[in-house]
């Protein structure tokens, strides 16, 4: 292979690599039950600093992705609030992540629906993509070791939470 052919090959490979990187960086991830969930600091929705799922290590965390413009999110928020109040003393925290939403709209939503569980903000939707969400709302139950225990694509209600989530809180991963 002469120098010119080598240069052309390098240029083609560089172009293909560039296109591949662009495609991969736009792709969405996915996680399965038993795998560690994506984590990292996100700003608190109320602007009071940052937080992450690891802050609740040792507790069950029901991560709920939502947005103020999402109709089903409005419907499920009272059930999540009731569940949080009912089980927070038994090692569970509901953690809301407001995604691709205006921060003022998100804060107004929290106030309007009287939500007391902690809220993080995912304005660019990167964390939502890391979890492999396909829409809103979606909920991910994270066990005390930070691994996914259950996922729900779509809204939850009292029936779902008590039938599928509550029993898991009493399994071997439950905090002692």
């Amino acid at each position: 292979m002469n120098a010119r052919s080598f240069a052309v090959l390098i240029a083609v490979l560089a172009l293909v690599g560039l296109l591949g990187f662009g495609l991969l960086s736009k792709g969405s991830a996915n996680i399965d039950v038993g795998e560690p969930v994506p984590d990292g600091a996100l700003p608190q929705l109320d602007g009071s600093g940052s937080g992450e799922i690891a802050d609740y290590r040792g507790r069950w965390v029901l991560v709920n992705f939502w947005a103020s413009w999402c109709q089903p999110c409005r419907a499920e928020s009272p059930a999540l609030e009731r569940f949080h109040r009912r089980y927070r003393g038994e090692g569970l925290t509901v953690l809301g992540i407001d995604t691709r939403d205006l921060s003022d709209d998100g804060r107004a939503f929290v106030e309007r629906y009287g939500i007391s569980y902690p809220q993080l903000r995912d304005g660019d939707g990167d964390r939502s993509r890391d979890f492999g969400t396909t829409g809103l709302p979606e909920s991910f139950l994270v066990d005390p070791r930070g691994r996914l225990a259950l996922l729900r694509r779509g809204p939850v209600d009292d029936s779902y939470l008590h039938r599928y989530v509550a029993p898991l809180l009493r399994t071997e991963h439950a905090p002692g």
Partner: protein
Amino acid sequence: MRRASAVLLLAAAASLLAAAPAPAAGASLTDIEDEVMCPVCGTLLELSEAPQAERERVFIRRLIADGQSKQQIKDALVAEYGPGVLATPRGSGFDLTAYLVPVAAFVLAAIAIALAVRRWRLRPEPAPGPAPSSEEAERLDSDIARYDL
């Protein structure tokens, strides 16, 4: 001479106009909608009727009413939704490749064309063919005579 002076005057006036600061134009929703994305839909905001897009428009209208410039509004959108809300790539990081790759491709193409033209010009003249035989020369003469050339 008079024409050259007129051209010089026009050029000077044009350069003065180009150097003068552009008048501050008020931002408008239609002017911004085609430069930002609806982050949920993955399309330009102007093409989307999704609920999130409607909230984004409300946000932009509010900032316009507050007297913010187009750039200030785009900055505020980036603060809310991240840099992905901009429809045009930023001039830094990986997005810079969107500007550099076409320029590099153009330069490489220009160099390739220049080299090809140079090689074509330096190509040796083809050797002349063999002289026509007497039979061919006679036939050529008769053909020319037939067409009265």
